[in-house]
Every structure is written in structure tokens, then in C-alpha cells.
């Protein structure tokens, strides 16, 4: 793994600026370390001959200045680092959210591992926090590790070439040992930490499943089992740690032995009179400084991997190309679905990473004012067809056109303005009821919002809310029932007042009484519009009925005409 991902500098201007500041601060810190050692050595040697404070006042003052400068540099470095971390996090977060939005809802839903939004949310919030220690601890230490050892080596070498040689020979041992021991233990340690993490996951699984375990009399044995397994993992982990800690041991030992070696060697030459006291002190004071940053950067290994991993996760998403030609269509033939017919010709849709096509060879004509029902088993491709019409996804082959124009050539905004959509499980935003209804038109007047709510049958329950239309709902506000959520979604669609209405099983999660009330509002909404309705239930079919099974579309044997129609189910089962 690279110590510094070049993409971090490419994607974040703040990171570039910060890196320069860190290098400057690192050089300043190095200079101050050398100055402090020289002054200290000079003072101790001068005082040894009985020189008093009066004579040494200048040097003492200079030392005070150096110490103050080091404190200031420490403070400044920390503040710059934390500010830079905040700025970089902000820049990455904005790029990430912008890009994810460009990738669209299809990308968020269609990962092989299921819905992605949870993991991206975590990455954009808590995940990026791993960059704090990366910037505040690891990077400054990395710069110091690159500068200080060489500076010290040169300074010591100039004062006493023999000690310089000792340091010069032992210094490379530190990274060498670190790499050797690291190579040996890294894989083992990582496996062990992963096992421990999995053990934590297992514990969570057991705790969440306690009611089920209790029902089958397995809860008490599980508690003992957790204790036993944790104990076993402790033994196994300690066995690996015994080896893993060897790396730190070797590094410390090398540094300490080198210091001892230099101290003794310098001491013996001092004894023989081959060297001055002040030079000897300088060498003694500087020698540990050469090893310190190398060891410290190793200690920040964890911060470096976590920060780099978080950044790499962000880059993996940022490097995902935005699909589709449509997003870039700048010109547009005006399209009006009140008069234009939609045609699907040989449309095929396949999501990346899936073996099977979601839709195959779909042909369909939707004329203005048509009422169409799509039915078929779960996962057959009903919602995928709506996704195509909403342009969340694009066909891999075939053509969708409206009024004779390829959909891809119609500007996305203009196209979607013609559509109102009522999803299966509508999302309510953390905002007021009014803002949720006015999602498509934030400028809508309160009267217009209230009219839409009335038409959706939501007027009654909204009036009963503590602050009426200003009541906060969604994530951190009031929880609404499934029926109320659907009514809000219907009100959205009413306010949208679009010629094409897409209904994705709006009653699927509702109990029967609520569903029948919803149907009344739906009847008002569908009147006079082109409607495509996805439905499981033969009772709620309207107009022409199409059956989708394993991605293939076929029209039902006869036109459905009412609640007694069972054609759809007969074909499906």
C-alpha cells in the first residue's frame, strides 16, 4: 500500500495545500531539534567549567526562544492538520455526494450486495472521520520521518564522523526490520483482527436473536458459548500478538542499542581526550532523535491504513463512470405526453454484475390517455420497466421513443417534468409535511399543497398533526403509518399534475381498509391521465393488462374490466 494516495492530492486541493504546509513545518521542526540540542550541549559544557548564569544569559535566552518556537510549531501543526482534515473531508464529501447523485438511483439499488445507500451514507459521514488521524498524526509524522533522520545524521557526522558512521549504519536497520518483521506478521495479525471483528458481529447476531433463542431454550447455552469462544480467540490472538509485538520490540531494541553504542563509544573517546565534552553531549542528545520519527511513523500504521482505506473507498466510487448518454443531452425536441405516444421497441435491460437480463425484447405502445396494468411475479421486471420510463436506467439495446424522438435525445429534466410517480415505499424527507408534498415544486403555495393533500385524502390526518403542514416528518420527525406515507406520495403526484402517472404497487404494504381508501384517491388521480400501474393484485387492475414474467412482456388474453378479472393470475400461476 502507498503511504500517500496520489488521488488524494488530485481530488482535494485542500490536501495539496496542506501537504506543502506540513513539509514546511516539518523542516522547521527539524531545524529546531538541531538548535535545541546544540544549545543544550553548549550550556551544559559551559556550565561544567563553572560559568555562571550571567555569562550564559544569551544562550539561556536563545534556548527559551527555541523551546517556545517548538511549542508554537506543535500548536500550529496540530491546528493546521485538523483544519486541513476538515477541509479535505468536506471536499471529498461534496464530490462523493455529487457523484453518487449523478450515478443515479439505479446504481444505488443495483449492487450485487443489495442496496448501497447505507454503506455510502456511513462512508460520507463517519467513514471520512478516519481521515482526521491520518492528517493530524500520520502525515506530519511521515514528513518528519523523511527529514529528521538525514538532518541528524549530517549534523552528527559534521561534529563527529565516527558517531555519524555508527548512526548511518544502524539507521537503515529500523525500516529493514520493520519490513521484515512486518511482512511476517502482517497477514497473521490482520487475519486475527478480522476474526475478532467477526466475533463482535457474532455477538451482535446472538443478542439480536435472543428472543428467538429463548423460545427454543438456546439462550443460556449461547451465553456460555460466547464466553468460551471469546476465551479461545483470546488465546489464539495472544499467540499471534506475541509474534506481532516482536516487530515493535526489535525496533525499540535497535534504537536503544544504537543510542547505548554511541554513548559508550563517545564516552570512551572523551575519556581518552579525543573529543570535546560539548561535542559528545551534542552527539548523545541527537542520536535518539534520529530513530524517534521512524518508530513513531510505524506506531501510526493503524491511522494510515484506516485513513487510506476510507479515502480509497471514496475514490472507488468517484472513479465509477456515470452511465448513459442521456445525462449529457443538451438539446431537446419539446415533448408533450398529453399528445405524444410512447413506444418501446425490442427493449432489453441488464444491470451490471447480473447474469440475467432484467427485461428482454419488450415491445409496447402507450398512447395518451391509456390505462395500463403491469402484473407478474416478484422480481419479474415490473419495476425495471418503470425505471426505464423514469430514466433511472437505460436500455442496453432496443429503443424507447416519445412522439417519434429517441428518449436519449430528450433533456432529462424536461422528460421527468411530464411524469408523476408513486413508488411502492415512498421516502419521506426530514422536512415539514408541506415541503414533502411540494417536493417537485418548492415554490408551490400553501393553498396548492392543501388542495393536493385534500385530493390525496391526506387532509384529515394532516389537520390532526401537532403543527399541521409544518409538522416535521421523516428520519427525525414524526413517524407516519404506511397508509399516511402513501397519501403523502399521492399528494406529491397530485401537485405534480403531470400527464404520465406511474404507480408502483401503491397499496402493497397497506392493510385492506387503508388500501380501499387509497383506491378512492387513486381513482381521482388517474382520471384524464396516461397511467401505468404495477400491481400484484388482480383486484386493482385497470385498462389493458400486461404480464411480465422473467423479463418478458406479454399482453393478457383479454382486456381486464373490473374486480372479478382473474386473467392475470391465471397466466402467472
Amino acid at each position, binding site marked *: 500500500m502507498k503511504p500517500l494516495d496520489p488521488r488524494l492530492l488530485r481530488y482535494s486541493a485542500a490536501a495539496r495545500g496542506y501537504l506543502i504546509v506540513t513539509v514546511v513545518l516539518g523542516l522547521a521542526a527539524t531545524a529546531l531539534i538541531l538548535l535545541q540540542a546544540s544549545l543544550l550541549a553548549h550550556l551544559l559544557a559551559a556550565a*561544567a567549567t563553572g560559568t555562571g548564569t550571567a555569562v550564559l544569559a544569551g544562550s539561556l535566552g536563545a534556548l527559551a526562544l527555541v523551546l517556545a518556537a517548538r511549542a508554537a510549531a506543535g500548536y500550529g501543526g496540530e491546528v493546521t492538520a485538523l483544519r486541513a482534515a476538515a477541509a479535505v473531508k468536506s471536499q471529498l464529501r461534496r464530490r462523493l455526494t455529487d457523484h453518487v447523485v449523478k450515478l443515479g438511483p439505479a446504481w444505488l439499488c443495483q449492487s450485487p450486495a443489495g442496496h448501497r*445507500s447505507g454503506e455510502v451514507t456511513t462512508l460520507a459521514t463517519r467513514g471520512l472521520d478516519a481521515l482526521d488521524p491520518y492528517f493530524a498524526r500520520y502525515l506530519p509524522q511521515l514528513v518528519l520521518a523523511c527529514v529528521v533522520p538525514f538532518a541528524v545524521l549530517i549534523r552528527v557526522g559534521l561534529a563527529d564522523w565516527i558517531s555519524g558512521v555508527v548512526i548511518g549504519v544502524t539507521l537503515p536497520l529500523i525500516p529493514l526490520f520493520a519490513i521484515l518483521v512486518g511482512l511476517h506478521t502482517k497477514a497473521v495479525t490482520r487475519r486475527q483482527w478480522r476474526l475478532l471483528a467477526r466475533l463482535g*458481529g457474532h455477538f451482535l447476531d446472538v443478542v439480536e436473536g435472543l428472543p428467538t433463542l429463548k*423460545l427454543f431454550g438456546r439462550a443460556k447455552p449461547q451465553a456460555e458459548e460466547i464466553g468460551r469462544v471469546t476465551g479461545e480467540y483470546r488465546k489464539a490472538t495472544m499467540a499471534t500478538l506475541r509474534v506481532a509485538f516482536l516487530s515493535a520490540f526489535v525496533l525499540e531494541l535497535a534504537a536503544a542499542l544504537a543510542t547505548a553504542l554511541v554513548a559508550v563509544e563517545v564516552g570512551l573517546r572523551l575519556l581518552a581526550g579525543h573529543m570535546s565534552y560539548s561535542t559528545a553531549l551534542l552527539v548523545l542528545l541527537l542520536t535518539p532523535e534520529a530513530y524517534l520519527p521512524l518508530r513513531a511513523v510505524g506506531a501510526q500504521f493503524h491511522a494510515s491504513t484506516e485513513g487510506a482505506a476510507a479515502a480509497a473507498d471514496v475514490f472507488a466510487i468517484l472513479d465509477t463512470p456515470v452511465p448513459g448518454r442521456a445525462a449529457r443531452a443538451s438539446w431537446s425536441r419539446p415533448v408533450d405526453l398529453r399528445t405524444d405516444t410512447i413506444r418501446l421497441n425490442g427493449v432489453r435491460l441488464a444491470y451490471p454484475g447480473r447474469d440475467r437480463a432484467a427485461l428482454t425484447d419488450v415491445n409496447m405502445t402507450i398512447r395518451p390517455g391509456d390505462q395500463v396494468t403491469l402484473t407478474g411475479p416478484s422480481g419479474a421486471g415490473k419495476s425495471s420497466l418503470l425505471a426505464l420510463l423514469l430514466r433511472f436506467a437505460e436500455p442496453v439495446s432496443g429503443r424507447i421513443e416519445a412522439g417519434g424522438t429517441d428518449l436519449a435525445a430528450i433533456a432529462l429534466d424536461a422528460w421527468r417534468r411530464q411524469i408523476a410517480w408513486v413508488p411502492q415505499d415512498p421516502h419521506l424527507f426530514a422536512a415539514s409535511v408541506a415541503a414533502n408534498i411540494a417536493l417537485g415544486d418548492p415554490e408551490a403555495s400553501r393553498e396548492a399543497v392543501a388542495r393536493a393533500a385534500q385530493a390525496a385524502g391526506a387532509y384529515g390526518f394532516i389537520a390532526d398533526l401537532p403543527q399541521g403542514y409544518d409538522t416535521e416528518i421523516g428520519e427525525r420527525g414524526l413517524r407516519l403509518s404506511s397508509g399516511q406515507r402513501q397519501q403523502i406520495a399521492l399528494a406529491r403526484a397530485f401537485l405534480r399534475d403531470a400527464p404520465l402517472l406511474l404507480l408502483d404497487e401503491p397499496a*402493497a404494504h397497506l392493510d385492506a381498509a387503508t388500501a380501499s381508501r387509497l383506491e378512492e384517491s387513486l381513482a381521482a388521480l388517474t382520471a384524464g391521465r396516461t397511467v401505468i400501474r404495477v400491481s400484484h393484485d388482480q383486484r386493482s387492475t385497470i385498462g389493458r393488462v400486461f404480464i411480465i414474467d422473467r423479463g418478458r412482456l406479454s399482453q393478457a388474453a383479454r382486456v381486464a374490466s373490473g374486480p372479478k378479472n382473474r386473467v392475470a393470475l391465471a397466466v402467472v400461476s
Partner: protein
Amino acid sequence: MTAITPAPGGHPLIGLLRLARPMRRELLLAVLAGAGACGAGVALLATSGFLLARASQHPDIVAISVAVVLVRALSVGRGVLRYAERLYSHDVAFRVLADVRVAMCRKLERLAPAGLAAFRSGDVLTRLISDVDATQDLFIRGIAPPLTAVLVGAGATTAVLLILAPAAGVLAAGLLAAGVLVPLVVATAARRAARRAAPARGELGAAVTDLLNGSAELHAFGAVEAGLDRTRAADAELTGLARRSAAASGLGAGLTAVVSGLTLWGVLLLGVAATGAGHLGRVPLAVITLTALAAFEAVTALPAAALQLGQARSAADRIAAVAGTPDPVCRPDHPFPLPERPVTVSLRGAGVRYRGQATDAVRDIDLDLRPGRRVALVGATGAGKSTVAAALFRFADLSAGTARLNGRDLAGYDPDDVRTAITGCAADPHIFDATIRDNLRLAKPDAGDAELAAAADQARLLGWIESLPQGWDTPVGTHGTALSGGQRQRLALARALLADPAVLILDEPTAHLDPENRRALTADLLAATAGRSTLLITHDLEGLDQVDEIVVLDRGQVAERGTHSQLVRAGGVYQRLAEAQGDPR
């Protein structure tokens, strides 16, 4: 063995620390090794100073030979002791973790599920688990470093005291400031920053969640820019706060440097003055100066330790809150023997009120479950159906009325024994992150393959399991995410059938399914439960013409009871439900 009990009126951390008592030998060894390692580092520099200062006086080599040996021994000793400290402290941490886990698991086992209601919402439970995991850091980073620092600081100060008393005063003051004052400042600044940033973090989380979970709606309604604007505003607010709190955080790094610099300078000044006045030789001057220089290594880890203790305190608070929750169900001291089959259960005027609630969840419930009979408990969401199941599972105590099992008081049995006779599927059954076989065998650990296959067949799962490439050994993923909703419900049903209890209770076995799957599963479970004593809890009236009795609950009370044919024309709640569900009959 161990139990987490909140210290009466005491600090929640004390409760955690008490867990480490059996390991105090290891903890002591860890601290001593740490102090030894750190002390060896200080002594190494001081001895080297002695060596050079003495050598510069050009004495006989014998005069410095002890120092030469000592320097070498200290440099080796430091590494060895540091290694020992790391091993011991990690060992203690893992042992404590195991104990906390077991103690929490035992407590949660007694609480589940009724007593856990307060902890189940959102990610509270997840956080509780990470709190338990966080206790391992408490010992490694929070407890050992301060104790180590006290020992090393005291040692260094004593050494200087023997040489030059005023310098020892300066050193002690400096170490105290860097070891106590700076960590306090750092921890306070961090706490204040976290508190100030909490609302901004919440808003950012909500904005991003809305942006991503509501992505389809935002696109469809052309509101993407508005969603992004909200995220950007939240990000700007949080970033602004982080920039402002950076100054406070930087203070920690700056203050430590100021204090250590001042101390070094003070000790040096006093030393040089004493040397100039002829009170102090060059050797002791070098020793005290280098001691003061090296001693601050002992306190550098303390600001981090203070932060760790602050975090551990919050974790300990939450753990103590769980530990302090009273058990929801009373256990008899001398329980009746295990109930024998056949089993009859009856509720008379039964009521349940959950702790802290002002009203009864259910009241005046009469219910009879007799061998071979199937009873359905019907009602809208929130009518109290699952509460009746909880009372029968002995997850909740009755607050009124009686519950009898084979004629004896239900509360007089050991709750675990009751559940060998009365069990099944609770609402939202948990599917474990394990194989299909393990998930099923949970209900009967000694079940043979034939028994497993029979239960799976009754739940109409066998064909599908055998068609899988890994068959019975297919992992189902966390919460069974690798399965469809219908497969999860069928797996839970198969588990309940495998347990083969005297009384089978199925709480909303068709929840979260689409109508097609609901109908198919209902038909299968009615076939599988024919001739068993069963309590079927549902809000869906499909197939209820096949059960012996239907009890309709409405707002916690029995509204009506009878068979499907009686109730469907009774003009009550049931008829309204039936009409709303468009029942053609």
C-alpha cells in the same frame, strides 16, 4: 463468576473496573512493566549523561565502567519490558472483554425481549455491542498509562530531589501540569467540540440519508439540486465547527510542549546557577538536565488516555443502564416440574401492562388452548395480539387475571420450562448469520437429517433447499439477507415445526409478504398445523374458515369470538375487516 452491577451511587467506570479484579495480578504486572520500560528510557539518558560528564573529567576507566554496563543493560531492558507490558495489558483487556460479554449476554438473556424494548430502537443495540467491545481499549489506553506515569514521574522527581531540591520542585510541577492539567484541558475541549458538533453531525447524517434513500424521488421530481444544497449546507456547518474546534484541540499539543520546555529550561537555569555558585558539579548537572528532558515521555500518552476514559465513561454509562434494568419476568423460587403432555392453557381475565406504561397493553383476555384445536387471534396492528403471545411465552408477567397451564399457575413454572411446552415464531423471527441447517437445528439441536427434512418439507422449503448448490450448508447471510422474505418466513415456520411444542404459537407468520406469497404460505401453514394445538396470530383473514375458533382483539380487549361463518355476518369488527379485505365469500 462475574456480574456487572452498577456501583451504588458510584461512577459507572468503577463497575467496569471491578470486573478486572480477578486479573489484578496481570494488570499490576502490565503497569510495572510499563513503568519499568519508561523508567529505563529516562535512566538510559540520565546514565549516558553521567557517563559523558564523568568521562570529560578524564578519570580512570574504572570510574565509568559501571555506567557503561548500565547503559547497555538499560537499553536492552527497555525493549524487553515494553514487550512484556504490551503482552500483559492486551491479555487483561481480552479477558475483561470476555467477562463483560458473558455478563452482558446473561443480563440481556433475562431482559429479552420485553425488557429490551428501550434498547431495540434504531442502532442502540449495535452501539451497546460496540460499547462492550470498547471496554478492551479502556485497560490498554485508559487505565495503564496514568498508573505508569505516576510511578515514572515519582521516580524521576525523587532522583532529582536527591541532587538539587528546587529543580525537583520544578520538575514535579511540570509533570503534574503536563500529566493532569493538559489532559483535562484536552478532554474538556474534545467533549465541548463533540457536544457542539452533535446536532450538525445529526443534520449531515439525515441530509445524506435523505439524499441517498430518497434519491429516486429526488430525481423523479427534479429536486436533486435541493437535496444536494441541503447536504452542502450541513457539510459547511459541520466543517465550520471543526475548523473552530481545531484551535482548542491544538492547545493540547502546544501546552504539552510549553510545559515540558518551561520545565527543562527551569531545571537547567537552577542547575547552571547552582554550578556557577559552586554548589553543583558538572556530573549531577548533566544528570538532572537529561532526566528532566526524558521524564516527559511518561506523560505524553496521558491526553489520549483522558480522551479514552471520557469515551469509556459514556460506554460504561450505557452498559450500566442495561445492567440496572430490572428483569421483566419474576421467576419462582421452587418451580413446578416440567409440564407433561397433553397441555391445556387457559387465560381468564388476563391483563398485561408493560413497565412504565400508563395503560394496559391488553386486559380481560379469556383464551383456551386445548389439544388439537386451532385458535386464531385476529386484530389490527397495535390491537395487542403480540402481547398475548408474550404472556404465553412467559416474556411478560400478567398484571391482572390468571394464566393456567394444565390447571396450575403459569407463573409457578420455570419460564424456560414453559417454553419447552409453548413455543413457535415470535413476531419478526430472527434468522442467524449461519447455514440453513444451523438455523433450523437451533430449535432441536439433536435432530437428525430426516427430522430436519420433514420439518422443511412441511414448510415447503425442502425442494428449494435441495436445489441449492450448497444445499443445507448454504449460508443465509446477516439477518438472512441471502433469502427472500417468503423463504425467511418459511424457515422460521420450519424451525417452529421442528421444535414440535405441545402448543404452537405463530405470530404474524405471513408478515412482510406480497399477497401471492401470503396466500401460498397461509395454505401451507394451515396444512402443516392440522391437528396440532395452535394459536395463529394474524391481521390477515385468509384461510381462517379452517380454524376452530377466532378471537378478535380490538384496542387490547376481546371484541368478539366465534367461527369464521358466525363472525363474517355478525356486523362487528371482523365483518368490517373481511369486507375491507374484499373477501369474496
